[in-house]
């Protein structure tokens, strides 16, 4: 889209007709053009339909939930949807705790990896390390969930603290590992978008490599770095499997602030509901609450993604 078709534009002007409408000659060719264009437009329009379907699906049932639930139940003991306790605080707080731990892990790892790959690594080292980081990005979240439960929890969390086997800290670290490649990729793109001339100017003034990175390159790429962290948070709060497997509390949860104890996030609450029983569709408000939580999650990630996207584009516009 950014690449307009220069030939068509030159002949017909920017607001002009597209080629298919102005072709003279063979009628069959012209019709085919129009038909293909119609089909392609239909495909593009389908993507809008998908967005609309998501909003429609979420809002419909969420509205049923909000209008039918006793409002006091939204602020009560904990999140036990099958017993009509829908304390939203519990799962939002769980989400915030786990996303927070994840970012504590992902920020240094992701930024460090990106800075090293972009600023320090030799081309050869880059060729070796970058694909490995990409492999990490391709590992399914269910695998990291298993790893968080069977390795991170006993070998890291329980070794350092007295913690439950299922705990939010292990889940948070697992999510952090999952988010690291994303943070690294977006940050590295931002760092590499900083023109070489800025670095050369800095060297010319006598700055060392480290000073150049810290005082010239990083400030110049700051919007991209912020974007990577925002997108990382968005990915962390939407992550499901790691939390569902490692954080425990699959049957519901009381308000829990201690990361060494089991806890529940919005996403894990949704999976717990979905697999808890095959009759989710029948059991009153539990089914509707699924969509209410989904809508909340959708809104949160959407806002974060839009903000993150703004920052990404600011980098692109600047250089």
């Amino acid at each position, binding site marked *: *889209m950014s*690449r*307009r*078709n220069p*030939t*068509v534009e030159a002949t017909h002007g920017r607001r002009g007709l*597209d080629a*298919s409408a102005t072709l003279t000659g063979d009628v069959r060719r012209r019709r*085919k*053009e129009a038909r293909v*264009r119609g089909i*392609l437009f239909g*495909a*593009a329009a*389908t*993507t*809008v339909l998908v*967005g609309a*379907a*998501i909003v429609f*699906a*979420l809002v*419909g049932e969420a509205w049923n939930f909000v209008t039918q639930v006793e409002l006091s139940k939204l602020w009560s003991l904990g999140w036990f949807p099958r017993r009509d306790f829908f304390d939203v605080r519990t799962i939002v707080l769980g989400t915030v705790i786990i996303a927070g731990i994840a970012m504590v892990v992902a920020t*240094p*790892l*992701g*930024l*460090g*990896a990106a800075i*090293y790959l972009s600023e*320090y690594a030799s081309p050869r080292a880059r060729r070796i*390390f970058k694909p*490995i*980081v990409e*492999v*990490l990005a*391709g590992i*399914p979240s*269910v*695998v990291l969930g*298993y*790893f968080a439960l*069977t*390795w991170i929890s006993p070998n890291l969390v329980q070794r350092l603290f007295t913690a439950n086997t299922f705990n939010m800290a292990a889940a948070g670290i697992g999510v952090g*590992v999952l988010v*690291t490649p994303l943070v690294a990729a977006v940050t590295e793109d931002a760092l590499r978008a900083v023109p070489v001339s800025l670095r050369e100017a800095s060297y010319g003034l006598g700055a*060392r490599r*480290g*000073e150049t990175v810290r005082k010239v390159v990083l400030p110049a790429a700051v919007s991209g770095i912020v974007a990577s962290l925002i997108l990382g948070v968005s990915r962390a709060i*939407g992550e*499901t499997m790691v939390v569902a*497997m490692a954080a425990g509390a699959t049957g519901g949860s009381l308000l829990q602030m201690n990361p060494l104890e089991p806890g529940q996030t919005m996403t894990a609450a*949704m*999976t717990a509901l*979905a697999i808890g029983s095959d009759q989710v569709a029948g059991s009153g408000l539990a089914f509707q609450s699924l969509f209410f939580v989904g809508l909340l*999650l*959708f809104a949160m*990630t*959407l806002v974060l993604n839009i903000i993150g*996207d703004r920052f990404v584009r600011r980098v692109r516009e600047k250089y």
Partner: protein
Amino acid sequence: MTAGTANPTRSAVAARLRGHSVKWGESAFQVAALLGLLLSLGVLVALLADIVAGAWSVFITRGADFVSSPISLSGDTAGVVNGIIGSVLLTLVVAVVAIPLGMAAAVYLEEYAQDTRPTRFIQTNVRNLAGVPSIVYGLLGLGVIVRLVTAIGAGGSTNGRNIIAGGLTLAVLVLPIVVITTSEALRAVPAAIREAAYGVGATQWEVTRHQVLPAALPAILTGTVLTLARAFGETAPLLLVGAATGFFTTGGQGLTEQLTGTYTALPVVVYSWSRQPDGAFRDELAPAAILVLLVLLLAANAAAIVVRNRSERKW
């Protein structure tokens, strides 16, 4: 340095030039960055070691039998064949639905659309869809797609919570990714190729079909394989559209039964087994299933890289 004692200014200057005063911070920063990279890689190593250590005994004692056995209550005979079949069928549905649709949408956005407000709206929408958490797509599947599948008579014995619904859910999930990767591939094709084709009188579709798409094909293929791999490893949305997590008997062996009956997928099997209280399932069979999953994904990734390297072109 011999003059150092005699002339303090000179020694100070010499020390400055050798950079003793700042060198510490200098290397500390580099070391910290390197540490970030190495820790990320260390996690990968620990993960693989953890999984291979768990899976080892299963493959030593049972070998290929584990891959070809169906789900079973007994840890000695349980295998992943249902998961593999389910995942392959799901990925086929994704490939048939999402790839042509996503490619067509990308061609429209990159080659045909004028830079108007509706076009920009479609693009923003695609970008935002790509960031929607996968579990929300599960809700879309549960709330809309399952009902749709039932409405068109493909619900079968599972009331629409079957492979068709699961595959469509995953297809919708990866659709924005297909659009974005294809768009990038198309954007990398130089304008000169299009202009040359227009110059000899080709129509827009002829230019796209015979020049632009073939030129972008390697990049599109790579992106496609990675997208399918993503769908192959996805778990959360399938849990919402009814992938079976417990022990179950699959229906008949016919294709219709496979498509409309109870189903599971390889990542769902992993999830299901790691929740079993029986130690053998959690500590040996689950990592073995993970190993099968990772090997399949790695093979797909390697294939994508080979395709890319074979046909990489520089303009």
